[in-house]
Each structure stands twice: as C-alpha cells, then as structure tokens.
C-alpha cells in the first residue's frame, strides 16, 4: 500500500513540475524564435548561397541540447506503448530539444554577424538506453550544425 502511495505522490509531483517547466520552456522558445525571425536565414539541406555577393567569412556553427522527460511522461508513455499509437508526451520533449538546439545554433551565428546558414543538419542520440533498464527516463542529446556565411 505504501509503495502505491509513494508512486502516486511521485506521479502527481512530476506531473506538476514537468508541465510547469515545459510551459515555460515553450514560451521562451517562442520569444527567441520571434526575436530571431529571418536574421540568419537558415537553409536545411541546400548547399547554395548568393554567388553575386562577395563572401567575407565562412564558419562552422553548432548548437547542442540535452533534454529529458520526467517520471510522469515516462509512465504515460509506457502505458500508451502497450496499446500503441502516438506517444504525445515524448513528441513534445523531442520538439523542445530540436528547437532549442536550432535556436542556439542560430543565436551563435547571429552573434558572429552571419547572414546565412547553409546545409544545416540535426543529429540526435539517446543518452540512456530505455530498453536496458525500464525505470530510466529517456534523455535525448541533439546537435544541430551548419556552415555560417558572412557577406561583405
């Protein structure tokens, strides 16, 4: 009985903290995205730039983020996993992580005065393997990188 109570308290607590942290994070991301809109133009996959203008500087830029879920999200996902379907709780985590990594890359490029980021790529990896230990909450490491071009 005591175990079930402890789990319920943990679920309730992590649900609250997880929701608050996620809401704040999404608000921050939105603000930063609006502030940076179109500043370094970002180009996924394409490898072209404005050839009519003289290039002053070429730099490699990247942004990293390690994001983790919470106990409640993990619990819901493991239930959902049984019945199948979309794991919405994990979707939001990965969305946050990717957007954060891309934003960091863009902010770095913007600080350096770049006009353009070409061939941006995103690379991600799970830091702890969920299948080896069912109790661990997944952590996702994301690196976004690209080539920043500054015109004269």
């Amino acid at each position, binding site marked *: 009985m005591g175990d079930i109570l402890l789990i319920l308290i*943990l679920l309730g*607590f*992590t649900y609250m*903290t*997880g929701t608050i*942290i*996620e809401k704040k*994070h999404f608000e921050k991301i939105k603000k930063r995205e609006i502030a940076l809109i179109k500043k370094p133009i970002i180009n996924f996959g394409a*490898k072209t*730039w404005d050839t009519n203008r*003289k*290039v002053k500087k*070429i*730099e*490699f830029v*990247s942004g*990293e*983020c*390690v*994001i*983790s*879920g*919470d*106990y409640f*999200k993990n619990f819901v996902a493991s239930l959902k996993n049984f019945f199948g379907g979309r794991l919405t709780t994990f979707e939001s985590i990965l969305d946050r992580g990717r957007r*954060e990594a891309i934003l960091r890359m863009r902010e770095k490029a913007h600080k350096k005065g770049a006009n353009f980021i*070409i*061939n941006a*790529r995103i*690379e*991600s*990896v*799970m*830091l*702890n*393997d969920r299948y080896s230990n069912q109790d*661990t*909450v997944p*952590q996702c*490491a994301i*690196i976004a*990188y*690209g*080539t920043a*071009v500054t015109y004269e």
Partner: protein
Amino acid sequence: MILTNIENVPGMVITAQLGLVSGSTVRAKNAIKDFGAGLKNMVGGELKSYTELLTEAREEAIHRMQQQAQMMGANAVINIRLATSSVTVGAAEVYAYGTAVKVQPKG
C-alpha cells in the same frame, strides 16, 4: 583553418585534396553531476550539465580533426559531419569527420 559542411568553400577554389580526417572523443561528467542530472531527470527539463558535456565533446572532436588536418598541411576541412553515440549512461561520444583540402582565394 576554414571549416564547412558543404562540398566546397564559398569564394575559394580547391587546389588539392588530402583525404579523410577525423577526430573522436568520449567524455563523462563526475558522479556528483551525474547524481544531480538524475534528480533533474525525474522532474523534467533540460540537463544543463550534460549539454555542457556535449559542447565540450564537440569542441574537442573538432579540435582533434583540425590538428590532423594541420599535420597533413591542409588549410580547410570540407564536408564535415558530426555523429554521436551513447557509450554508457552519462557518457557521450562525438565523432567528427571531413575531407582535408588546400584552398586558394578565387582569381
């Protein structure tokens, strides 16, 4: 040293190709930070210490790649790719690889 992740260097011409260069690193944080991250893991959010770890790992991998390119006498590395993998819990591997080339300004 010029680093790009496209097949050429904007505004320059490639005069010599020197082959593959790569650098990799596996890094881990200390046990106290691992414990802190474990607590943060329960409540959710970004794990700042692991983000730091990833940044350090990426910088070191690229630095090693650059050193290798310098030994070959290159002045640029093109088509860089970053790959990551998890070795154990709390450690991250970052592998950077690219083609070392010699470049000259156009004209």
